């Protein structure tokens, strides 16, 4: 377990930060749950009723074989099936940039869940900016390792863009955490424009 945790810490600090935002014992829906890593952290450390949706069938089957409650489904089309306020927390981890209609998806997350937790790669990061500015090429970084022609990420946004979308949807930002390239949390007092420049990833905790 410790071993697993330290591996996890190295790879996905964002998952641990997100799991800390979830109140123990609550009902959680992880949209785009992949192989269920976050669901497992949540079940084991926060004693939550954790469910997942995953697009890839192989990921779903792995999750179910591990005893996680996961269905095959598409964030763009299948969230409409869930009732209002069905969950205490809905989570969209590193997935919003791969959806066809991020705005609709976010609206659905806020409808289904009392809180929504969204993490995404920040396209406003200075490395991204400098690659476009100086190389004139679409950025390929460690965090965003695809070429423009084969990327599943079709709707990138910056931290500022996301804040603007939250405003448009009347979503309240309860917390916003930006992580640097090493996965370390940036200080809360750092102004938004700086977070947008040096934050490689962002995690938002939202409510309506």
């Amino acid at each position: 377990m410790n071993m697993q945790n330290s591996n996890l810490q190295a790879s996905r600090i964002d998952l641990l930060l997100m799991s800390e935002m979830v109140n123990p014992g609550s009902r959680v829906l992880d949209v785009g749950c992949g192989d269920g890593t976050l669901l497992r952290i949540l079940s084991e450390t926060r004693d939550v009723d954790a469910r997942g949706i995953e697009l890839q069938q192989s990921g779903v089957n792995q999750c179910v074989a591990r005893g996680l409650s996961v269905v095959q489904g598409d964030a763009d089309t299948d969230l409409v099936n869930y009732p209002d306020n069905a969950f205490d927390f809905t989570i969209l981890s590193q997935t919003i940039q791969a959806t066809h209609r991020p705005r609709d998806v976010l609206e659905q997350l806020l409808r289904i869940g009392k809180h929504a937790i969204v993490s995404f790669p920040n396209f406003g990061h200075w490395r991204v900016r400098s690659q476009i500015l100086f190389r004139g090429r679409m950025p390929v970084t460690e965090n965003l390792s695809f070429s423009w022609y084969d990327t599943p990420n079709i709707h990138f946004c910056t931290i500022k863009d996301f804040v603007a979308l939250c405003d448009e949807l009347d979503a309240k930002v309860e917390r916003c955490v930006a992580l640097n390239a090493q996965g370390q949390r940036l200080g809360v007092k750092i102004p938004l424009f700086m977070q947008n420049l040096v934050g490689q990833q962002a995690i938002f905790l939202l409510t309506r």
Partner: protein
Amino acid sequence: MGQVDQTTNRQSGAQLRSKAREVEGHVITFPADEPLELDCGTPLGPFSLAYQTYGELNKDASNAILICHALTGDQHVANIHPVTDKPGWWEIMVGPGKPIDTDRFFVICANHVGGCMGSTGPMSENPETGKPYGLDFPVITISDMVRAEARLLDHLGVDQLFSVVGGSMGGMQVLEWAASYKERVFSAIPIATGARHSSQNIAFHEVGRQAVMADPEWCGGRYIDEGKMPRKGLAVARMAAHITYLSDDALHRKFGRNLQDREKISFGFDADFQVESYLRHQGYTFVDRFDPNSYLYMTRAMDYFDLAADHDGELSKAFEGTPTRFCCVSFTSDWLFPTEETRTVVQALNAVAANVSFVEIETDKGHDAFLLDEPELADAVSGFLSAAARKRGLKLNAELEDAELGS
């Protein structure tokens, strides 16, 4: 087809009936004054259920798993079948150390009411006439079968099932169980099934029934009295149905256009092709273990199943407030119950925020995949049941005793 006829032991309805009576296992008979209230309005009584159990019921009766068999299955899930001498139909899934682990769980499987393996069905004696019911047997529905099983569980002292599991028609019963007895079902695994029988499936069933009824030996359903048996009709019904259990790819992989015991085509109507010979074999071996009238009743029960219609046309209403954990499974090449049918169930469950898992398994084996060696099915079932057992706080008898000693 006459050729195959000669190679198969002819067996009359009476013989089949006596064989079914010899079946080892349990039979519970509910007396005439405690009849089964049927959806068609006729009470059925007395009625019997023949059932098998495996494993041991723990002290707090919390480890029972009910397995619901498919259209032509029976209660012999994990023991040598008394009529065919073949292994139980789900030994791959049920047994010590198997995904449905009989070292941990108390497994129950009953022959459905209307069946022909010891439970009351059209082959049974009608108390009013002293003769076999035949078509005087009332039409049975999926929910009638479930209601009968609930009576069996009362008898066994099982208030809540730890899980109810079944494929195809068995899966329909799983859904009916979850809808009708919410508090009695802790978890449910409907496999390769749907919340209603599609028009195409009803059509295939009608072909099968017409084949049986067109056989002159069917005698308007009174073949037992007449000492006859509509073997050919039932065999044709089974042949047609069997095609729907497989897939084009599976048939092609298994048989292609290969010829049976010959170098070239015969320019006649013998079984030139292996696939023909295979189907004839399937048809004729089926007749040895299944009652033709029971086939009519079982197929009808599936046709009538429409869980949404029973709940104002809204499937999600069937599951409103459900505390049950679901694991729905479908197979990519199943064209009898395609994945879309399962997805409809999953969407209805999502609509009431039920705890649901949904696994679609990639296979070319068609509908019958649920009976075959599919490692992903085994992994899903055992992973799901283990997690459910943890949630339920399930304990074996030894663990319960330890807890008592400790307290």
